């Protein structure tokens, strides 16, 4: 485990460079600023509705994915571009351990940066609406979404220099357009896993057998974002953990089979 934590520590330092982290922190704070501006000129209910129908998408569908994509792609991509991968790989460590440690580090970095913005957003929401119940849900959803995108992009970062571009295209086309238009594939959407967890925590008690029957205001607000995906924390957790496991297995396999230095 000492090797695992050594890799995590150095990767965190590598990912959270001064210039990069400032840029990403600014990005993660954008939804909070928007919410603050809206909240100052709206009723509590309008602010709450705006948060659930619009801002939650900006947090879980835009800022958290972008931050996680950049840091996820960098976890192995930075090593590749700095040509330090040999320093890491030519050690008596299983490839799975290297990749898993890198993934954990990228997830922690993403959660630290995106979570700071999400926390700020939750504080603004609590301050304007007067309810602090949703803070935990927002943070859990951020953690789940971050892990999903880090897992998806770490592999890309290992195999191509254009990982961030490819992942952003995926985010726009698949996550943004396709899964929104076709509810049959909406469950593959990573950011909706985060929304699903959020919904599971916030409205779990209200979600009855007629889940989309607009029984509660929360349900009604989130229906469009979920696009047919059932709410639930554990389902979302299992999905992103599965994605992370596949990502680690495939990346470790490629690390063994492909040349480490081009």
């Amino acid at each position, binding site marked *: 485990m000492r*090797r695992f934590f050594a*890799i995590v520590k150095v990767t965190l330092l590598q990912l959270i460079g001064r210039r990069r982290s400032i840029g990403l922190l600014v990005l993660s704070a954008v939804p909070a600023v928007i919410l603050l501006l809206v909240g100052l000129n709206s009723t509590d209910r309008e602010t709450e509705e705006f948060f659930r129908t619009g801002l939650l998408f900006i947090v879980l569908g835009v800022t958290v994915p972008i931050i996680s994509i950049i840091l996820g792609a960098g976890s192995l991509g930075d090593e590749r571009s700095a*040509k*330090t991968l*040999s*320093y890491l790989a*030519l050690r*008596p*460590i299983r490839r799975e351990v290297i990749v898993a440690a890198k993934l954990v580090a990228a997830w922690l970095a993403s959660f630290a940066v995106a979570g700071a913005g999400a926390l700020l957003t939750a504080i603004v929401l609590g301050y304007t609406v007067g309810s602090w119940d949703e803070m935990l849900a927002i943070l859990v959803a951020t953690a789940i979404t971050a892990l999903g995108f880090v897992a998806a992009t770490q592999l890309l970062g290992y195999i191509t220099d254009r990982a961030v571009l490819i992942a952003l295209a995926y985010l726009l086309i698949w996550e943004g357009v396709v899964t929104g238009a076709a509810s049959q594939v909406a469950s593959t959407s990573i950011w909706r896993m985060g929304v699903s967890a959020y919904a599971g925590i916030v409205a779990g008690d209200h979600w009855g057998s007629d889940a989309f029957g607009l029984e509660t205001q929360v349900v009604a607000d989130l229906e469009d974002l979920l696009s047919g995906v059932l709410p639930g924390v554990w389902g979302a957790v299992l999905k992103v953990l599965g994605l992370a496991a596949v990502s680690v297995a495939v990346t470790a396999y490629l690390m063994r089979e492909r*040349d480490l230095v081009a």
Partner: protein
Amino acid sequence: MTSISPAFVDSPTIEVTELSKWFGQKVAVSNMSCSFGPGITGLLGPNGAGKTTLLRMMAGLSQPSRGELTVLGTNPRRETQVFQKVGLVPEDDAVYEFLTGRRFVEYGAELAGVRNPSSAAEHAITAVGMGEAAERRIEGYSKGMRQRIKVAGALVNDPEVLFLDEPLNGADPVQRVRLIELFHQLAREGRTVIVSSHVLEEVEKMANRVIAMVDGRLAAAGDAAAIRAAFTDIPYRVRIDSDVPRRLGSALLEQDVIRSVEVINDTLHIQTDDLGDLGRMLAPLARDLDIRLTMVQPEDLSLESVFRYLVHGR
């Protein structure tokens, strides 16, 4: 071009058998068979000869397209435990710029599973003479300092096999002498040290054995003189300084062992097929003619000459 044995050593730590590597249509290494043992072996060849590709395969960074390779009896691509006993100094500037030199080396020790990383790092840093700069971040290091901290990072797990790709790049003359002495010390301790370099003078100073590659193939193996001796179709060039070069030249031309004679700036340059015969004949001849010899020096026993013959065939 002549292919020369021995490409193999008695007690190999690394064995390369019919090894090939190609990238698409380009063949980088073709059917290489050789072995490496304790001591310093120079991997020599012009740019594009395939020496870095071979080094990377031996270090486990690159997968052979065909053939077999074992390092300390195991396949480095399959058995990562072998890296407990292997160190690599890559040609690339492969350092974590945001770490201090000490942390960089300690990290290597932690990754290698060394029992006491701090003490191992201190030992390796001292060995490369980086003690004073160890607390500074690598981003502020000169090229030579980066090179030395990479060497420390490769030494920190006390490797039995050390791969060095252009290890003296950027090092100043004092650092070069120190690093070469360090590599000799490692070789004396019974470690296998493989140095890839395009600087012949460096290889000559470091290596007592050379594996020469041309166009991805094994071109020659052995020490420089042994490789040179195998070029039987190319006469040796010898410089002879004397008080009367022209008279000596005329006398030498009558000897069977001499192929040609040339006097340039009062210095005699001859070509001979046999250095031994020349040596046996020259002194008595000079004595008979009452000629004083001031210097007799073979001109093409150096690695540079050998290299020229290997690459250009002349």
